[in-house]
């Protein structure tokens, strides 16, 4: 039987309609720039005529106003299945898929519309390769044996270059330790070492962190450092690999050239690439998706993940308004109550989960001493901190991550070190974290309020909380009260009311 070849039937506002048998990846180019790649069966939906529609991804839709020469072709090959001028919207002007700074964007391997390497100048790539080399050297000096991993290893081994559709660099190491406790401790230590050497870092799991590398035009490129370990003949490499593997396939490391620079790679890189990308790793696939076995995902989730749930959501939300003050000028009812308590006790207010700092600013402007805490403080509270400096307010911004014991214990110890009563304001933070975060909060209150004070907290309760984008798990007010009592609360009162159609609780606790 003859296999029907791939044909592109049409390209319009809905997406790209294809027909043919078999599944394969194709690239989509606008005016010679790759913007997207998809698999012709996996990423498409059937229509009534037996054809398949690849709908435009949502982030791309907002750019579809104007005209572009649209090409659909085999990845990295001149063979095209479609090549025509297509108009979208009113068709005026050329379509440019760029960010606010005019930097060209494309979909990377994680399905994000970002400045991929193929849209970058040669100088930016050289800078990133050089930064990767510096991070590798820093990790080696800290005592591990790092090597290129994931897409960066694939690019180095297959093409001697960074992959055009990639947008970050990945560095891995396989620890000498064999249990997750020591692997996490080692990762904590490595992050500190890199911090001491002047690298900007942020952690997203117990065995992985990110190093930020700024490029010339303000694009900040992430360089991920993934920890791994061998145990019982299995290699666990954060965050996708959990397979039977030989130690000798990793160590001793060998080298490979990336963009002309000598880089460390595993002893048998092809073995690692095969377990990462499958036996077809030598064929380019810009639309590759990991199909990590649930056993591996479960193990990584349990061992290392959950350190900052939903933080990406908040970072994304706050990133849009980093330099803008919060629009809300009026305080929340909880903030008013916290202000009254602070006045009565002559105590500072600790605003936990301060968000963009509307309540903190209001309290500070009324003369209260305030510390605004958030786990996304850097982005969320940047504008509030700047306003506080300008207005000479007694408002300090500090990071606090309720789901990370290190953060809870460290900040708790700092507060416990200076005496005096305090007022804690927790406005919709207990319903924005998980059980671990609520336990962390109670533990932190025990330290912050050990010399007396008041907690004023508000949170939604009931099934409908789940409808909120930022909700993680429902608060059980009785369980929470129990935790707070164990943490030293002497009296607790609950008031139930409705806010925005949702049942809400105000909890006031005295220490």
């Amino acid at each position: 039987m003859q296999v029907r070849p791939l044909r592109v039937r049409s390209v319009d506002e809905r997406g790209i309609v294809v027909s043919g048998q078999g599944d394969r990846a194709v690239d989509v180019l606008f005016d010679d720039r790759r913007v997207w790649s998809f698999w012709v069966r996996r990423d498409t939906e059937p229509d009534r005529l037996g054809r398949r529609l690849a709908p435009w991804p949502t982030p791309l839709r907002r750019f579809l106003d104007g005209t572009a020469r649209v090409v659909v072709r085999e990845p990295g090959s001149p063979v095209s299945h479609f090549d025509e001028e297509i108009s979208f919207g009113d068709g005026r002007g050329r379509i440019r898929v760029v960010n606010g700074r005019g930097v060209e964007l494309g979909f990377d391997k994680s399905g994000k519309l970002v400045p991929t390497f193929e849209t970058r100048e040669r100088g930016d790539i050289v800078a990133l390769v050089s930064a990767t080399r510096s991070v590798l050297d820093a990790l080696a000096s800290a005592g591990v044996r790092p090597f290129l991993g994931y897409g960066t290893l694939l690019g180095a081994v297959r093409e001697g270059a960074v992959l055009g559709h990639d947008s970050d660099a990945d560095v891995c190491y396989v620890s000498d330790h064999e249990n997750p406790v020591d692997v996490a401790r080692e990762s904590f230590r490595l992050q500190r070492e890199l911090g001491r050497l002047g690298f900007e870092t942020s952690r997203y799991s117990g065995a992985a962190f990110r190093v930020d590398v700024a490029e010339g035009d303000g694009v900040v490129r992430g360089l991920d450092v993934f920890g791994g370990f061998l145990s019982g003949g299995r290699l666990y490499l954060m965050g996708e690999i959990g397979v039977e593997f030989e130690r000798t396939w990793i160590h001793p490391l060998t080298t490979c050239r990336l963009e002309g620079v000598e880089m460390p790679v595993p002893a048998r890189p092809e073995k690692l690439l095969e377990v990462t990308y499958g036996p077809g790793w030598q064929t380019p696939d810009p639309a590759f998706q990991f199909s990590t076995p649930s056993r591996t995902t479960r193990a990584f989730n349990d061992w290392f993940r959950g350190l900052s749930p939903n933080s990406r959501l908040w970072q994304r939300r706050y990133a849009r308004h980093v330099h803008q003050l919060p629009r809300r000028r009026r305080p929340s009812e909880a903030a008013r109550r916290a202000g009254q308590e602070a006045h009565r006790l002559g105590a500072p207010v600790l605003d936990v989960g301060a968000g963009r700092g509307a309540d903190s600013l209001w309290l500070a402007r009324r003369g209260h001493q305030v510390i605004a805490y958030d786990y996304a403080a850097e982005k969320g509270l940047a504008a509030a901190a700047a306003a506080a400096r300008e207005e000479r307010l007694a408002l300090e911004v500090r990071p606090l991550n309720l789901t990370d014991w290190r953060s809870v214990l460290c900040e708790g110890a700092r507060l416990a070190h200076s005496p005096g009563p305090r007022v804690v304001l927790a406005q919709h933070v207990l319903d924005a974290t998980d059980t671990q975060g609520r336990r962390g909060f109670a533990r932190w209150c025990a330290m912050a309020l050990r010399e007396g004070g008041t907690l004023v907290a508000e949170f939604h309760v009931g099934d409908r909380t789940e409808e909120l984008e930022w909700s993680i798990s429902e608060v059980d007010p009785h369980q929470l009260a129990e935790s707070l009592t164990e943490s030293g609360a002497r009296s607790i009162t609950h008031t139930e009311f409705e806010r925005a159609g949702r049942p809400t609780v105000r909890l006031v606790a005295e220490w």
Partner: protein
Amino acid sequence: MTVNVKDKLNVVARVRSRAQLEQRVSDLEADMSEMRRHNLRLAEIADVVQELLIPMASRDEAKVQEAIERFNKSL
């Protein structure tokens, strides 16, 4: 076709045994997950002890504050 009582009971027993087995696997997964989660908590506590306890034991106020700030910044 007639199905005798013994066969019927066998089917019921098999279904019940399979349901019990599924429940046991699910319980084991939950228990294992709970135990595995202690790894990260233990690592966090060990890290706090290592980085903060020693400076705090020195009772030198400046060193304590410095250690806390340095540790906080490294998170």
